[in-house]
């Protein structure tokens, strides 16, 4: 992983993240269903993973030495598909087949259809367990000095599932230094705000008490994302978790911070939101101007 982020590199990543967000909007509109908020909110993290952090080869997805990325909250897979396409795993134009009959891009990720995925997911709370299993296997085979890392992306709402905590107890017990969990702390879930539905705080203390090295970052700041992952990689004798504070719907003003957009695509009639026929146009326009705004900040 390359840590020396130049302004030029950051600009490149911001443009990629914008392209990925544009793709997400186009995919969801084309599909007519899907999860907008989490997909947009995680665009910067996925950009950092696929363009900087992950040791992978898009031309040889099955390369055995690759890092593994497990998506636990399968419903934000549109952003993962978009990041994969924009980094060369498959053609960008295939993204518009999302959720359609016969598509490799199933509504929730399914390895039968797209074998280059590390796992099929959808039901929440099992990603950390699977990643722990992979990390354990790697330590059995390569020992503690293995240079492979095992990343798991989880939502915050899905931490309500007890299985996560079973998995974290095992990760702590086994001192899995090759395990890095990234939590999308966007504070929303389907029924409302996480702290109303089922309070998670003090979240960092919970993770620490389970034996995790814990980081808290701005999930839209590439320097913070990449530096936090670098520190997590350096922790040798235990697992790490990065709480990435993100804005759900980031980049599209009428979706930002609003749980009503958790499970809906642009083009949905929602009281108080722009007319459904206008939503895609507004979203794309804002995303394009966001690119310009970021560019000016760094020039």
């Amino acid at each position, binding site marked *: 992983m390359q840590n020396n982020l130049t302004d030029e590199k950051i600009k490149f990543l911001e443009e990629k993240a914008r392209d990925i967000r544009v793709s997400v909007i186009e995919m969801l509109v084309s599909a007519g269903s899907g999860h907008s908020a989490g997909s947009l909110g995680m665009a910067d993290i996925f950009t950092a993973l696929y363009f900087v952090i992950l040791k992978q080869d898009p031309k040889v997805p099955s390369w055995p030495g690759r890092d593994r990325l497990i998506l636990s909250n399968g419903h934000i897979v549109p952003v993962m598909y978009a990041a994969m396409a924009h980094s060369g795993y498959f053609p960008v134009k295939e993204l518009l087949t999302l959720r359609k009959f016969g598509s490799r891009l199933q509504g929730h990720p399914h390895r039968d259809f797209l074998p280059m995925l590390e796992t099929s997911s*959808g039901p929440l709370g099992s990603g950390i*367990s*699977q990643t722990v*299993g992979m*990390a354990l*296997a790697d330590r059995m085979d390569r020992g503690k000095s293995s240079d492979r890392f095992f990343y798991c992306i989880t939502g915050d709402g899905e931490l309500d599932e007890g*299985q996560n905590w079973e998995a974290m107890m*095992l990760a702590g017990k086994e001192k899995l230094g090759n395990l890095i969990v990234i939590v999308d702390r966007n504070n929303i879930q389907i029924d409302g705000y996480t702290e109303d539905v089922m309070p998670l705080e003090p979240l960092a203390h919970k993770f620490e008490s389970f034996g995790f090295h814990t980081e808290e970052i701005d999930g839209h700041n590439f320097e913070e994302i990449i530096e936090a992952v670098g520190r997590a990689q350096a922790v040798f004798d235990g697992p790490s978790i990065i709480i990435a504070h993100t804005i759900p719907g980031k980049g599209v003003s009428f979706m930002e911070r609003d749980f009503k957009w958790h499970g809906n695509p642009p083009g949905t009639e929602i009281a108080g939101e722009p007319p459904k026929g206008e939503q895609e146009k507004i979203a794309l326009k804002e995303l394009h101007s966001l690119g310009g705004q970021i560019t000016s900040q760094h020039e």
Partner: protein
Amino acid sequence: MLNPNQKLNPKLFDKDVEQIPIRKGFGEGLLEAGEKNSDIVGLSADLTESTQMHLFKNKFPERFIEVGIAEQNLASVASGLSAMGKIPFISSFAAFSPGRNWEQIRTTICYNNRPVVLIGSHAGFSDGSDGGTHQALEDIALTRVLPRMTVISPCDSIEARKATLAAAESGGVVYIRLLREKTPVITTTDSPFEIGKAQLYYGEEKAKADVGIVATGSLVYKALKVAENLKKENISAKVLNVATIKPLDIDVLVSLAKTCGAIVTVEEHQIACGFGSAVAEVLSQNFPVPMEFIGVKDQFGQSGTPNELLEYYEIGESHILFAVKKVIGRKN
């Protein structure tokens, strides 16, 4: 008479027939499989000795993972190990795995196509005194409904050992159902076993008979005793040991229905969605004949010895005998 081709235990009908817990065969089989293949790993949820995984753990501590009392994690950690090329065996009581963690088995193992071998011990009434919570009478239903799942219910410890070795080499998702208490040794090391094959233990293959008894698990023993006793009443019976509940051996089942014209199924499980139901799915589509089902009738278990419970829930030899006569009476 016993089918000589099956090379069954010659002392099968003796009063002092040897008795060994079926789970013991698993423990020995896993140790043997582990010696052959270093990719095999064992995972336990705080029931290592109860499920007989301790033999493997003691020999290969570096390939053994204790996850604590956490069956959901047990299933999904195994999925992750499988993704990295390991052959994980996960063990618990059947009431908890697949009882507690069915969705994790469905999504992270079956749907995800990650081969894992699931060991459900203390199934049926074999954990008698612990009572109904611990008596898995639904595990066949839970597993056989899942795509990609193979379901095996060995009739004795020797068959359990063979099933374990075969599962380790199968490359697929396999559920093996085990019992706690000692049960009669029916087979020998020379008895044929193959995943997906039903074996005719009593009667001659091509010959006609009055009834076919189709049994799974240790109840194969009771079915054989009933068949032997029926001789005195001039009723001819065949007994099929169906160790692999999924996929069922359709050819052998249809051939049995054709030569007998009436079938009784026998299992230590709910009748609903269980083994007999699976047999009925096959026969009703291929060669319908009158059927009777021996199994639990939509009830939960309770404390008692396994034999007391089998009698109470009408799964004893007298009940099999009654069902045989009833089904013969229903033949045209």
